[in-house]
């Protein structure tokens, strides 16, 4: 085991503590976080930015944090009567906060200096983990105005591929990261589209598919071959220092279906169980997690049925292109200002 001595199984176990009703998400994240630790996303040169830290759980686990047994992200999920069975698109059940919630999480040794979030609820949630020194609300698509040029040592950007305009945000990374600084990010391969639920369910009701898909196929469309990503990075003033692929198709398949269609029903089950037998509740959750750990073991292996080349996602370590190269590409004017700078 490399990756700073935390294996996928360990990451999966930690993720399941919070995400137990969505094991497919925990599985996906365990592969992603394992790849990120392998690329030292948890040991970036300071000051470092966590670009898109969401509710903070992934960032916290990346930094080797552990949560208590009672920790449960579904504790704050509320499904209103009007939501029930009304479809999954547009209802962000997680975008809610229970006032007064505190989790006795471990303190992490290393922290991100900055964390960018794009939902108010994420500010509060991520703040509880203590994996960021400062958190900022940011509007996706806008420039990173408050971050001076060449001021950061590193960026971890797990959600880059969600952005509408990839080259715009990559140019911003090239601007804010100092020469020889590092950007670690992930992106889908061009082959991901072929492995999406939408392909599997071709010919079925389009609205139903849209509901189950929740926009993921759109993200998959941003998939590129390694050459495609390389071209994009270079056009944006960055170059690849290191590259690997991760996520076997079998894990993707599990993720594509998983327990997502049953989410509302499972949350109701969880809430009722907690209300009706709080004393036994944790033992049921423990059994559930134990079962999932056992069932998912083959999917936590390195290849899980795919050669490295057949895996569906890329992870990159990038660095700003040296000024000379940028000049050659016409990215910097003679006066030294980067084009496209905000």
């Amino acid at each position, binding site marked *: 085991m490399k990756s700073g001595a935390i294996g996928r199984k360990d990451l999966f176990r930690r993720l399941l503590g919070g995400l137990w009703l969505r094991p497919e998400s925990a599985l996906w994240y365990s592969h992603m976080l394992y790849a990120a630790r392998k690329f030292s996303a948890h040991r970036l040169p300071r000051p470092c930015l966590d670009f898109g830290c969401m509710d903070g759980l992934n960032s916290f686990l990346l930094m080797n944090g552990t949560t208590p047994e009672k920790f449960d992200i579904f504790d704050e999920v509320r499904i209103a009567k009007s939501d*029930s069975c009304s479809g999954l698109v547009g209802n962000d059940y997680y975008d809610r906060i229970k006032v007064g919630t505190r989790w006795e999480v471990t303190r992490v040794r290393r922290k991100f200096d900055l964390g960018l979030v794009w939902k108010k609820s994420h500010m509060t949630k991520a703040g509880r983990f203590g994996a960021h020194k400062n958190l900022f609300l940011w509007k996706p698509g806008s420039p990173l105005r408050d971050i001076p040029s060449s001021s950061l040592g590193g960026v971890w950007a797990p959600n880059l591929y969600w952005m509408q305009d990839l080259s715009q945000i990559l140019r911003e990374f090239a601007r804010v990261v100092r020469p020889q600084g590092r950007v670690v990010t992930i992106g889908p391969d061009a082959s991901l589209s072929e492995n999406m639920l939408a392909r*599997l369910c071709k010919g*079925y009701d389009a609205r139903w598919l849209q509901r189950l898909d929740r926009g993921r196929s759109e993200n998959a469309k941003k998939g590129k071959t390694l050459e495609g990503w390389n071209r994009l990075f270079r056009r944006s003033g960055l170059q690849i220092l290191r590259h690997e692929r991760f996520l076997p198709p079998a894990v993707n398949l599990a993720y594509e279906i998983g327990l997502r269609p*049953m989410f509302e029903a499972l949350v109701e089950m969880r809430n*009722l169980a907690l209300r009706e037998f709080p004393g036994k509740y944790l033992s049921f959750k423990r*059994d*559930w997690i134990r*079962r999932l750990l056992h069932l998912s073991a083959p999917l936590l292996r390195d290849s899980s049925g795919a050669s490295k080349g057949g895996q569906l996602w890329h992870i990159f370590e990038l660095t700003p292109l040296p000024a000379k190269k940028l000049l050659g590409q016409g990215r910097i004017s003679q006066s030294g200002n980067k084009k496209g700078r905000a």
Partner: protein
Amino acid sequence: MIITRKLFRSLLIPWWLRPERALWDAHAFAAIVRLTGKKIRRPCLEYGCTDGTYSFLLHGGELKFSYDDYCELNLKSVPFGCSRKDFFRQPKISPKQVIRKKAKFTIDLGVSWKPYHLKKAARLGLYKKLALCRLGNGVPSPKKHFATIWAPNLFWNRPERFAVVMRSLQKSLLANGRLILIVPDAAQKKYEFWDSHPSVPLHYRKELDRGIRQNLLQNAKSNQAWRAFFKRNGWRVSKHEKFLPPLVGWVYQIGLRPLFPNFLKIFMELRKRNYRAFLKMKKNWIQSMLKNLDPLCELPKKSGLHRLLWHAYEIRRDRP
């Protein structure tokens, strides 16, 4: 596909924790309805009636919403994990009323291979008579007696026993009687879930699969091969339907089976503690399943018959 949807809805009441199974059976039984229409001549035998639930619902019966297949399980017999053990083997079967609406049809004889099946089937008032019979053995009934035999589980027999059992069923049929059965097409092999994921270690595959792959594949043949097989054994095909889109087949092969014991333990506890809340949750659960799986009751657009994985046949004696 209205009938598939209707059957799926009815099957979810007893099988709500195993929606993938309800979906598969809804497709199969809808094909049977298309094949047989409403006229089923008697006397009628169901060879492999298990606990009778399916035929009861197929013939217009309705179960009480509070009834499900789990309420009589002995939780101690439910192992942690997916062993091949039959969880349902030792239920505490009570004589309580489970019917909301009677079935519109009566089956003269129901035959199954587990005593508890017969006890449960007896409560439904669907069968005039029930009899125990070992899987793969002939029918305990007089010769040339039945006008219709419905055999939903013949494909569970090993290929070498298949023709033997069919011969025995033939003897029980009247000269112009018919046998209705479902069998897998050769395409089932092409769409076999585990075969397309060969890297999954064998012991995991065994644990998750619980022998289903063997049931699905051991008798898989093309329509042409089935017709040739029937002809060799003295039958002719009088009606034929195909059913089961590959996606439904895939959903069935995994579904909620791996987490079934965990669901069961939570829900049994809930049933014990707060019955009203439990029933409300079951109702919402079923609504959620209907909403999210409903489109799978349809055939995918542009799906040719060649892409459906199962056959339903009505066959008759070749030379009455």
